[in-house]
């Protein structure tokens, strides 16, 4: 069973169904499958040979999953974990909040591995137009994605006027519903997603007043920053924070403050808070899955096993946020691990923790199971680094040293690390730490 029909979930489902894993079902709470790409009406998806827009990519992934035999059920929300009806499962983390699931017949997904087999897999409670369901599966892939932190979570002071967006809401408002979003927008952030937000503002017929970032430079390739500045004559305000939102009823402006203390008011009726993604980890937390303190997503090993047997996780719930293609590749990787598990492979132990030292913020995957080497690791830094060298150590012993590709050690950019040093890890040793010099 796959929770979430975004790139990771759909790819996992397609691979599982194609490999004959039995009944494969994807539960999606939105009315349509596809995840965030549904409302990314810009290019940059697909492959170099087959480039496509977000919506096109979303449709293609959903079609591929269905063609492979997976069942996608939209409008169904997974609420919580539960107990299989009639099953005596110990250690249930919480009571059934609805008190309703038990009354429903069990819906068994992921079967087909021999009728009558005792199914003691994870159980989920869901609800949809058809009422509550208790869904039992032999394996669950959590692919619940990520969201941007809204203005409130960023503690931006001021009044609470209308006209305050995240990129996700803005894109849906414009591309899915054709809604009016104002005339003059300030975009907070200078990352690739901020540029996408600016494009959406322009597509809605509004103007972009400025891009504002507290960083000393844009977190996008030089060319993209230049195009924002030159092609659209959009000011890029660096070293600048949004200090206050102004206006009653509708936003009337934002007060910005430069690092040197100067403040100014940018007149606008819309502000878009972009980037600063966080995994949508509610279900992982409700299931008491071990989380990684850095990513705030489930802690996983290289094959995407979580701390709970039978439960895998893939995509941006693990690391907010990577491009759709990276999420899809993880979905495929999770599918391989699920197939192994269904074929009888033992659930790996917790493995060795993989942690980072500041200014690195997180690394994913973040548990090392010697048999489960990932293709690569992805990291984030909290401060831009010039010519960094990554060091991998276990108990003080240097396992690996690597100089990342130039220009990747920026905030909100994927910094990657090879996993070639895996066989040098002592399975009986302490945690492995990644530092930067």
């Amino acid at each position, binding site marked *: 069973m796959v929770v979430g029909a975004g790139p990771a979930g759909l790819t996992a489902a397609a691979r599982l169904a194609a490999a004959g894993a039995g009944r494969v079902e994807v539960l999606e709470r939105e009315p349509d499958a596809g995840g965030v790409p549904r409302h990314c009406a810009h290019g940059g998806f697909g492959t170099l040979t087959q480039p496509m827009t977000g919506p096109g990519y979303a449709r293609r992934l959903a079609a591929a999953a269905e063609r492979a035999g997976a069942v996608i059920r939209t409008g169904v929300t997974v609420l919580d974990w539960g107990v299989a009806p009639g099953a005596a499962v110990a250690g249930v983390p919480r009571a059934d909040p609805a008190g309703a699931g038990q009354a429903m017949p069990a819906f068994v997904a992921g079967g087909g591995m021999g009728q009558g087999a005792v199914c003691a897999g994870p159980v989920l409670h869901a609800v949809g137009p058809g009422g509550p369901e208790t869904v039992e599966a032999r394996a669950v892939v959590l692919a619940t994605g990520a969201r941007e932190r809204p203005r*409130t979570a960023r503690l931006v002071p001021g009044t609470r006027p209308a006209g305050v967006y995240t990129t996700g*809401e803005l894109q849906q408002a414009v591309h899915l519903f054709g809604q009016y979003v104002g005339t003059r927008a300030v975009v907070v952030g200078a990352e690739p997603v901020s540029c996408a937000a600016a494009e959406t503002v322009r597509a809605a017929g509004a103007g972009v007043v400025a891009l504002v970032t507290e960083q000393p430079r844009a977190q996008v390739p030089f060319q993209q920053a230049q195009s924002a500045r030159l092609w659209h004559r959009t000011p890029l305000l660096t070293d600048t924070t949004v200090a206050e939102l102004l206006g009653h009823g509708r936003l009337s402006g934002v007060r910005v403050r430069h690092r040197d203390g100067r403040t100014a008011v940018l007149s606008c009726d819309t502000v878009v808070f972009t980037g600063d993604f966080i995994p949508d980890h509610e279900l992982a937390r409700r299931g008491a899955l071990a989380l990684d303190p850095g990513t705030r997503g489930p802690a996983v090993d290289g094959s995407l096993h979580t701390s709970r047997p039978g439960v895998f996780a893939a995509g941006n719930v693990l690391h907010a946020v990577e491009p759709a293609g990276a999420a899809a590749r993880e979905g495929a990787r999770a599918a391989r691990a699920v197939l192994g598990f269904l074929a009888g492979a033992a659930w790996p132990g917790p493995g060795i923790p993989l942690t980072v030292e500041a200014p690195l913020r997180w690394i994913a995957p973040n548990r090392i199971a010697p048999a489960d080497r990932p293709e690569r690791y992805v990291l984030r830094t909290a401060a831009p680094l010039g010519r960094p060298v990554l060091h991998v150590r276990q108990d003080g012993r240097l396992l690996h040293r690597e100089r990342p590709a130039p220009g990747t050690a920026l905030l909100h950019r994927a910094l990657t690390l090879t996993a070639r040093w895996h066989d040098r890890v002592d399975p009986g040793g302490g945690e492995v730490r990644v530092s930067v010099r």
Partner: protein
Amino acid sequence: MTVTANGPLPEAAYDVAVVGAGVVGCAVARELARRPGLRIALLEAQDDVGQGTSKANTAILHTGFDAVPGTLEARLVREGHARLAAYAAETGIPVERVGALLVAWDEEQRAALPRLAEKAERNGYHETRLLGPGELYAREPRLGPGALGALHVPGESIICPWTTPLAYATQAVRAGVDLHLNTRVTQAGRQDGHRLLTSRGPLRARRLVNAAGLHADTVDRLLGHEDFTVTPRRGQLLVYDKLARPLVRHILLPVPTALGKGVLVAPTVHGNVLLGPTAEDLDDKRATGSTADGLAGLRDQGRRVLPALLEEEVTAVYAGLRAATGQEDYRIAAHPEQGYVTVGGIRSTGLTASLAIADHVTDLLAGTGLDLGPARDLEPLTMPNLGEAFPRPYQRPELIAADPEYGTLVCHCERVSRGEIRDALAGPIPPHTLEGLRRRTRARAGRCQGFYCGAAVRHLLEAAHGEGTPA
């Protein structure tokens, strides 16, 4: 049922006009609605009921244990607590009797606890109990280190501040009260009763009740009274994510000082955790903004009380203004010669006291010579449940079986179904804005603040209003 939001007001004179549709004004209108002989108008300057102080407070149903003994406030809070608790049970307004702990963090504070227990006795509240650190930490295991003890007040409860005024107003409107929104009173004169000039034209009424909250002094002055001045006291609050709810079991209060009641950490009936409020005296009645200093100060104080809370995500930030008048009591006064009652200085306890205030005001109106006529029971009302301690529509299979729209979730973080949004939009007092819809359903009130559902919720609101692109 009459709810208007634009156009001229009725010409015929009302028996009573209540100015201000906050929790107090709505309660007064509801109480008067029990008298079928009276023609009542409820006037509100904004576009919805409960839009001022009523929507942005700490959402606590007070026992009144810490009121100033002998004051009108102490009596009305005590009476109001019992009445609102009963009313909530009847109408389905979410209430949780979680109890409060006044936590002492130093010797001086611990020494003050017995005096607070005695004060509670004088206020007619007899259930307080002193706890040592062992029992305190057993009750609140996630409390920060260093607490020396606490006073337990088991009757303190949490309540939904949005459903309450809406319930009052709905019942009032159903019973024949005319609710006029977007109606700001700008002038008042007398000629054969009150002649008000409003932003929507003139209105006549034989009696006038001033429940204008922050603006009660302004309305009072229109009537020629200079009894008090409302100084807005801003309270900023942080609302933490639902995933933080297991961290706290009681309303955690500091031991009060001369400076006020201080910053609390409390669960909300919506399943979140509240941290606040600040207390800042201002001179701007529109200053409902939060400030960087305010939020930083709250976080510092919250860190001591419940360190794990600071690791959780913030869902919402808001600021409300209390109507401080420089006197530690309500300013409820009748002016029989004018046929006028002022209900001023109703502070954070106003939600709790609202039904008792309404009763009191009705008596005062009778004292102005108004013939109330016979009383009747109002038709019972059931409000949509926004409380996490009670089954929400998505948790009710029988409801979904009857109408699948209750199983179709639109707002995922708060688990709000399309059925609930549809019902709110078709309700007796429909919301005109996303904010109004949020207070009725909690749609868009969750951790993503609209990242996932914002556009879809707005689509439903605009479809109901037949709007494409608002100007």
